């Protein structure tokens, strides 16, 4: 069995169950028409997938670590990131509690983006 690791989310079946609605919403964002619908009316889009108020709030606030903790798989989260103009490294900086610039300064070759 898996043991917890500090500062790390391990995406297991319990987390997957918690994140079902969020991951369904994210999966839909693999279609251009759905991405447009999300950008046009985020609230309606979230309601369509039956998100709870707490889940909706995480998306409204672009709270990426909160979304991970609520069961969004990282590879699904990337789709919300993309639809909201937050690439992986911007989301990562937020999860580390850093600005984007601060995060880039920690990298070996910050041009490889």
């Amino acid at each position, binding site marked *: 069995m898996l043991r917890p690791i500090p500062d790390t989310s391990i995406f297991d079946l319990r987390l997957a169950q918690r994140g079902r609605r969020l991951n369904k919403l994210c999966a839909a964002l693999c279609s251009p028409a759905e991405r447009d619908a999300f950008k046009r009316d985020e609230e309606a889009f979230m309601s369509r997938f039956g998100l709870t108020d707490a889940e909706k709030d995480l998306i409204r606030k672009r709270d990426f670590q909160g979304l991970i903790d609520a069961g969004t798989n990282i590879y699904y989260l990337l789709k919300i990131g993309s639809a909201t103009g937050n690439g992986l490294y911007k989301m990562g900086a937020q999860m580390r509690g850093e600005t984007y610039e601060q995060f880039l300064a920690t990298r070996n070759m*910050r041009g490889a983006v």
Partner: protein
Amino acid sequence: MGKVVGGIGLSHVPSVGPVVDRNRTQEPAWKPLFDAYVPVREWLQRLKPHVAIVVYNDHAADFSFDKYPTFALGVAERYAIGDEGFGTRPLPEVPGDFGLSAHVAESLVYEHEFDLTICQEIAVEHGFLVPMNLCFPHAAHGWPVRAIPLQVNVIQHPLPTARRCYRLGQALRAAVASYPADVRVVVMGTGGMSHQLQGKRFGFMNEKFDQWFLDRLEAEPEELARITHQEIMEQAGAEAVELIMWLTMRGAVAPRARRVHRHYYAPMTTGMGLITFEE
């Protein structure tokens, strides 16, 4: 008869896709990565494979948690390019090899008792396409090899064990060898190396671990296959579990296969490793 003529372990990251599509491969931050593949492509031209079996993972582009297979094999005549949420890349469809796929499926299920999910359609994405871009660049009219996707669950625990992935590679080797047609096959295992993409440990890499993994993959793969997901995640980051797919590649080439190329570059958030083996 079929023959596995080589194996390639290599990392995939989505950012390589747009770099290829916008012809940015010679930029200083990317050049070290792409330069490492120049001798690999020359080597592949000498090996003349007909088919690449790509052991990879989908990143929620075409597979979803509604039903999530542990091992999924493509048995199509062609594979579409998937949209993983950033738009569909301008790439030609990838030609498959139905005959070999069907044989591999039957051999793995009947002879080697791997209970696969069989897929008549798979839209492939960066986990599959970045390795293809690096090793088998496409032309306007298409790709230089046929390809067979073998998708592995490395994103929703419980994952298959590293040893199971190694055994899958050994079974794949036997399956190819029992194919009646003369077909030369390269097996690619892709993903990782060290990386974590969430939590306060976002951006974690461990070159020492990655180099150790490459050493063991070459010299002691059977031993390396005993590594647990827990050990990989603790030492190399939660998303580094993709490395178990490298063991499938290693199982598919001979234990004493000669290591030909090896390279490592870690510019941003993922250890980008490369290792090749020749029979």
